[in-house]
């Protein structure tokens, strides 16, 4: 306790009566280290969050219900949808029938899954209608109308990832011939084109359920999949169990289970994230280490005198550790304020554009506090090494500055 008090006394005097500019530059360095520790990881976390939310909001919902028999349809889907809607925590439910088909526009051909959707409930579950780049989304009464994802329409956008496999230049009002897998063939007018910037979603081709039942006559009251959107505070696991218990001939999968194709991306991003954090922490370690090292070299004689008059080595080391903790804490606090008040709003105003859309910094207080604590621990350790080395040398050498 006595050592802690004296160490605090020495540290405080050194901080507040030492060279102002050295202290200010040290804090500035720690601000930058802390920002570095937050920025890249929160940006990459933003990519992961964007990927996951695009997956949920444009492709699978929170929970997908399918027939438990592979390749089969869910029968009596209307009743099942009604049952699911009544479950507490469910926000919206939409069924869909899907069949593969080949689309033709002039000499261009493309293959796509054609989904027959209930246009109203589809809008409640998915955000796809918000991404129209041409025309408009399907309405309940639409006949002979089709809505294409940008990756299948091409829409004259040669930079699209799958442009070469698309219809290349399909636009609103064009007539597209669809040859369904069951042999039916029908021509549709393109009502609109959407581009959610999530490749898998933008491969979708949508017609309304009535149209679908015309080309696949036995599709009424059946569904290839039912997608469920949950309220934000809902317990997904619990609702998943409740849906599974409704019928024995269905199986359910959460969006995380369906995220297999984005999982490799997110895992890679998480690895990059960890590497960047480790590098940022190492930079923080080196910063404090160098500052403390230079400080103890300059104060070698002072340390020797402190030891000669009976200040114990652990007390002297502790005073350097307190100093490092102070600079890091102030750096982290100012860095956090700057991050929240400047960096995040600035990035939100001028977001980074990734292939899956605008990405925003994904940061929360837990993440910031955790990183600040880790940085404090790292700075504590990095101050200890040079201080320990200086303090356990010979007192006489220190006094003579050797």
């Amino acid at each position, binding site marked *: 306790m*006595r050592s802690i*008090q*004296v160490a605090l006394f020495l540290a405080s*005097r050194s901080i507040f009566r030492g060279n102002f500019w050295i202290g200010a530059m040290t804090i500035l360095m720690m601000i930058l280290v802390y920002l570095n520790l937050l920025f890249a990881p929160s940006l990459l976390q933003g990519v992961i969050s964007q990927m996951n939310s695009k997956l949920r909001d444009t492709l699978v919902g929170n929970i997908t219900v399918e027939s438990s028999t592979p390749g089969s349809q869910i029968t009596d889907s209307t009743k099942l949808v009604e049952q699911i809607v009544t479950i507490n925590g469910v926000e919206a439910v939409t069924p869909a029938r899907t069949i593969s088909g080949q689309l033709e526009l002039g000499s261009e051909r493309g293959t796509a899954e054609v989904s027959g959707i209930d246009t109203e409930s589809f809008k409640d579950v998915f955000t796809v209608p918000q991404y129209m780049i041409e025309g408009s989304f399907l309405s309940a009464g639409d006949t002979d109308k089709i809505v294409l994802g940008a990756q299948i329409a091409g829409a004259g956008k040669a930079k699209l990832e799958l442009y070469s496999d698309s219809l290349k230049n399909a636009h609103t009002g064009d007539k597209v011939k669809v040859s369904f897998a069951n042999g039916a063939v029908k021509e549709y007018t393109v009502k609109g084109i959407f581009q959610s910037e999530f490749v898998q979603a933008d491969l979708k081709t949508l017609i309304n359920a009535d149209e679908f039942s015309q080309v696949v006559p036995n599709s009424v009251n059946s569904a290839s999949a039912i997608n469920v959107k949950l309220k934000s505070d809902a317990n997904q696991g619990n609702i998943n169990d409740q849906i599974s218990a409704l019928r024995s001939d269905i199986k359910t999968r959460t969006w995380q289970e369906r995220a297999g194709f984005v999982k490799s991306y997110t895992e890679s991003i998480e690895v990059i994230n960890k590497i960047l954090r480790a590098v940022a922490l190492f930079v923080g370690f080196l910063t404090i280490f160098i500052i403390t090292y230079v400080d103890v070299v300059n104060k070698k004689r002072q340390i020797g005198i402190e030891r*000669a*008059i*009976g*200040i*114990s080595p652990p*007390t002297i080391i502790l005073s350097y550790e307190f100093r490092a903790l102070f600079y890091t804490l102030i750096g982290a606090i100012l860095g956090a304020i700057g991050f929240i008040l400047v960096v995040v709003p600035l990035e939100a105003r001028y977001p980074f554009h990734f292939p899956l859309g605008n990405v925003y910094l994904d940061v929360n207080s837990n993440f910031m506090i955790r990183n600040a604590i880790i940085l404090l621990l790292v700075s504590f350790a990095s101050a200890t090494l040079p201080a320990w080395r200086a303090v356990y040398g010979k007192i006489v050498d220190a006094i003579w500055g050797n």
Partner: protein
Amino acid sequence: MLKAENLKKIYHMGDVVVPAVNDVYLEVEPGEIMCIMGKSGSGKSTLLHILGLIDSPTSGKVYFKNQDVSKFSESKRAKIRLAQMGFVFQEYALLPELTALENVYLPARMLGRWPSEYEERAVTLLESIGLIERMHHHPRELSGGQQQRVAIARAMVNKPEIIFADEPTANLDSTSGKQVMQALTWLNKQFGTTILFVSHDADDQKYANRVVHLYDGRLSESAGEEYNA
């Protein structure tokens, strides 16, 4: 109080062996003022550091209050230095970020005394050496003599039994040097504190009860005559 037996301190400079302290026997009595005289490089500071437990001998023993302290761990030696010894170095060894008052009471804080107790004692000491008006000044704002007197007050704050002073007047003008030496002798008379100081200035001998001379690491009670080894 303090006894050295067969003390040796040898430095190796490449292949050359330099005996800084060579077979020294010395006994310091309680309450005396002893001066170790010697030319520059004679080993007097090295001897003082060994006796003051801030350096270790290559061989030989140091007894402090009849205890062989030469093999004590650094932590034990630090405790003895803090509670029972005081140090005054040449070149005004004060901590620059502390005021005169803080410099004086720092060892008392380390010893765990109450703030009211150590502050009062530090103020009294500064008053007694004539620096009460400068107690809130930093070392850079004090003259060399004033800094050295602050160092003496610091050495006294824990009421040590012995003060070691390493050429306390070396960097001072004659007036300041005189004030410093008078402060040390005053402490000796006032509190009975044993003073052991080293000097190369023959004028300082007059402040000592006993003078020993060091030549090339060897000790003599009177200049240049008999060596004790």
